[in-house]
């Protein structure tokens, strides 16, 4: 076993300072431990029965609240990797926003299974969040007139018909926050700034 510390001796004028520095291994271990606590806590929020299981439909929420930003497809793939059969649409919506009348698959994910998968995801820095400027560019791509605004219809069309379509309800939510009441359009730069304030 290699030692976890090696000392580094910079000279500061005439003083010699010994300062322990963590090896990559040790750093990994440290992150690992921190990850475990974070993952456990996020998991437990949705483990309503304290049985170390969560409904598979909440997994998307958990993964995203841990800082990851996967697309629906990526989420589906991740779960498929772990052998979970799910309908990829239902994974994205929080449980509380679903109409219970829909036919839904049931399934549970155990903590023991989730932890190593999620740890790997965090260690590998998969599904990193999108930087603000890239997000802005994305909006600009959709803004065919290049005027800094998207009309309500444009946004609805893009969000509900392309990519990984979002639901009617989520669309309404998005609009309620984004839309300018008078012009009925969305100043996306302002919108991004406003939303990112919450991202502390």
């Amino acid at each position: 076993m290699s030692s976890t510390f090696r000392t580094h001796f910079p000279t500061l004028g005439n003083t010699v300072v010994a300062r322990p520095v963590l090896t990559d291994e040790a750093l990994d271990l440290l992150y690992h431990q921190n990850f475990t606590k974070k993952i456990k806590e996020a998991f437990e929020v949705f483990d309503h029965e304290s049985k170390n299981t969560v409904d598979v439909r909440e997994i998307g929420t958990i993964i995203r609240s841990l800082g990851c930003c996967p697309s629906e497809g990526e989420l589906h793939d991740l779960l498929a990797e772990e052998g979970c059969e799910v309908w990829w649409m239902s994974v994205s919506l929080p449980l509380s926003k679903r109409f219970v009348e829909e036919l839904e698959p049931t399934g549970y994910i155990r903590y023991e299974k989730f932890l190593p998968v999620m740890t790997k995801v965090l260690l590998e820095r998969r599904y990193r969040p999108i930087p603000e400027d890239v997000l802005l560019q994305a909006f600009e791509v959709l803004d065919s007139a290049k005027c800094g605004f998207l009309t309500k219809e444009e946004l609805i069309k893009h969000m509900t018909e392309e990519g990984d379509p979002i639901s009617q309800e989520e669309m309404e939510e998005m609009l309620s926050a984004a839309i300018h009441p008078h012009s009925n359009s969305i100043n996306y730069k302002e919108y991004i700034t406003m939303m990112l304030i919450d991202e502390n």
Partner: protein
Amino acid sequence: MGSSTSIHHHFAFQNAEKAFKAAILIQRWYRRYVARLEMRRQCTWSIFQSIEYAGQQDQVKLHDFFSYLMDHFTPDSHQEKEFLDRMFTEERFPQEAEMEKYSDYESIEVPDSYTGPHLSFPLLPDHATALVEAFRLKQQLHARYVLNLLYEARKHLAQLPNINRLSTCYSEEITVCGDLHGQLDDLIFIFYKNGLPSPERAYVFNGDFVDRGKDSIEILMVLFAFMLVYPKEFHLNRGNHEDHLMNLRYGFTKEVMQKYKVHGKKILRILQDVFCWLPLATLIDEKVLILHGGVSDRTDLELLAKLDRHKIVSTLRYKIRKENDRQTEEKRKAHQTSSAQTSTPWFLPQSRSPPSLPFHLGSDKAHKASLSSSVPCSALLEHTELAWLGRRSVDQELERCQQRASFPGIWEKEEPLPQTSEAHTVPGELPEPTLQEWRQVVDILWSDPMMQEGCKANTVRGGGCYFGPDVTEQLLQKYNLQFLIRSHECKPEGYEFCHNRKVLTIFSASNYYEVGSNRGAYVKLGPSLSPYIVQYQANKATHMLTMRQRISRVEESALRALREKLFAHSSDLLDEFKKHDADKTGLITLTDWAAAVESVLHLGLPWRMLRPQLVNSSMNNTLEYRSWLKDLAKEQLSRENIQSSLLETLYRNRSNLETIFRIIDSDHSGFISLDEFRQTWKLFSSHMNIDITDDCICDLARSIDFNKDGHIDINEFLEAFRLVEQSSSEGQAADCPQSTNANDNGCSSSGAP
């Protein structure tokens, strides 16, 4: 042409592809945003729920306090004896003669100046409708009509069976509503949206009409009025809050006394009886069972149908009639050898450790055994079951103490009890509720469903059980039912299916914890019996807010309640922090902070996630805990002359304090004497190991502006320390120098939460 078109197509394709990718990017980002909100919402929900249930556990602890009281308090003086009497006069069974006295409404005159609604009996549908309208206009019903209505309601309820039956053949549409908890706006909304009750529109209200909200009495008036007008189509089930002991703590008692200063006591007395007469369950088409809490693995519908529900006064205390008490008392005295033994009788819990009681509840021998002191040996009891049993014997002890209080020094004699005259048997009376029957009722009023299979004691609530899908299935099969409708638990969407859609929870009090916290819902059933659910949120303001704003608002409220709870445990927290700070640096890591907080509060909350909102400044992952605690205190302290430790104690125990005050104030005048207050405090602090001197408390009490005649206005006292919300804003300005606009959350007895 060819080439330009293909280039055009190429660009078009590229653009489309770019747009597609851009859309995905935005959607990814947006979904993450929504997930974070959802996480916050869920955390907020956990905060409210854990605080609410912790409050209910408090109730259990309060009863332990009373049993302690019974053990250790020997009245030395006439004053103290009187004090005890006052404490426990509430516990008497109301007898018929008394009932007549309490429901004497005819002598009450309605002055000409009264502008509220008038009622005449028998009630007509128009009266009931007019009542709803009057309440919508914020009028108050005169005490005479309240009493009259309650009297008629009681008469009607008394002839109903325990389990009422409805059929969709007669009423095509049956609407079932859940908990209302004094929120009149929700009731009015339901009638507005769904229509008023009528022979074609049947309603079932599934308990918990009162407590917490501010219009409980109005809700009761409306519900009873419609019940009298449409007796076949309008049904009520009893909830765990239809219970005078719960009302003492959760606000209904206070509401009645505030609104009806002169006749409130009468109203409360007759209500106590009316609640006992509420039916226990409703059955639709013999297929859908509606009851308030849930079921257990020993739920026996036949037994429930047969028992005398009127004898079950409160699901918090198992009372049997005085007669049996006396018999048992005599038996015990006969068995007792030289009674130098003043130590706790074997059947009372000795301390917090569960004793090895040789008792197996639920067996046939059990209820006989519970009435005598010799007991067959069997299995060990579960701790909660023990607590209930302990409670039952508390009543025996109660009797003993009352006797001693009334006849100091001669308790050895077989002196007849003062209440003997009331304990005569009425011919044709049904047998006493046995422990088994009482537990049946507790189970259906307090249980919650769980996802796991099985059936285990509901330790969170302190009563009833958690029942799994197998228990549900077993019950449905046994009685050939299709599904269960219950309430009792607040749900974010106002409803929730579980157990493979065999159990439906329906909760009708929207914004229960805070404006924007949840929707309310009701369910409609037609002949097909397939549930149709309608949701609502009775507050226009929330519709204007975005989800983010709504969540932020509710979150802020929850965090405030949480910070208050943290403050209330400052001393314990400090001790715990110190344990993690062996080197006395004054710092602890944030991880240790989370562990320490959980070990003190036991709320099971995701502290690491909540940390950014609870801890403002932390450097290098460490926290200066002393200054953090100081900041917490600063937020809560409204008066400088109070020691923060005293306030902390008051906060922690305020619900108990208020409940005790209201019990002491048995004539519901709102005043207790300084002496009584001191005595209560003395007892309370010795039991709870509170380290506050009597002088300190007395100074405090005196520092509030009393009328200096030695009486404390309970409300003034509690309000002065922001222990409860200020008196109702409807015109009654509290005469308190320190008006606050604090929203009182958690275990508060009044206000929205």
